[in-house]
């Protein structure tokens, strides 16, 4: 018995074993929207560079952004932006030492989707009305 073998530790259960909860969904949504925003910066940079390149390039960029697919991407991007921001506000609450009890956590998770979805639609209404 000179050899001390590492104990066969139990593995912690992973995602598939848990029932989905609002906090889980909003947690992964924060990551997914963050990743979407990250990749989408390529489009923002491309749009800015097009504007800096002159009228022809800018018109092309505007036409792509104004197409159905372009609008869809813009809508998803704006929703990701707002959702990630509202989710971030939740993190500020936690950073300040509040909102750790189960009920508040659940409410804040629901709140983040209940605010971000209508807020995104509102922003689009304002944008389309001002147009």
């Amino acid at each position, binding site marked *: 018995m000179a050899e001390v073998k*590492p104990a066969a530790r139990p593995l912690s259960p992973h995602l598939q074993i848990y029932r989905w909860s609002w906090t889980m969904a909003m947690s992964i949504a924060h*990551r997914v929207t963050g990743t979407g925003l990250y990749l989408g*910066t*390529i489009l923002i*940079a491309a749009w800015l*560079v097009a504007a800096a390149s002159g009228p022809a390039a800018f018109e092309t960029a505007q036409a792509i952004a104004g197409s159905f697919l372009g609008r869809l991407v813009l809508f998803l991007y704006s929703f990701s932006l707002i959702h990630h921001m509202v989710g971030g*506000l939740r993190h500020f609450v936690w950073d300040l030492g509040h909102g750790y009890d189960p009920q508040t956590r659940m409410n804040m998770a629901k709140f983040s989707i209940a605010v971000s979805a209508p807020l995104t639609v509102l922003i689009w209404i304002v*944008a389309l009305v*001002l147009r």
Partner: protein
Amino acid sequence: MLSNSSMRTPLARVRGLGSAKSGTGHFWLQRVTAVANVILTLIFVGVVIALVGRPYASAVALLSNPCVAILMLLFILSACIHMRLGMQVIIEDYIHAEFPKILAVMGNTFFAIAVGAASVYAVLKLSFGG
């Protein structure tokens, strides 16, 4: 030989270095840029709304306004730092093999700087007269 009494590897114990000690700085910069992003994102959304459907000349005029241009530059800077930190956490959470992880973290930095530099260049070119 691994002992069950310690979570540290023998090499780590010999080196005695502990963590890289950059965690608090990472966390704090993530929060500082997050606070800045709340303000700057709302301004950015406002600018985009104001640009919707505008012809080239008036879009350029708006983007080259000094206040708008400075706020856009701040937004680009803050957003790029924030997204680089965030993506680094995601990479470190999901990629465990040392070499791919280092490559991904490095590529993440390259990406954030490339996107930031392109955007800053475009805004400066527009505001200094196209």
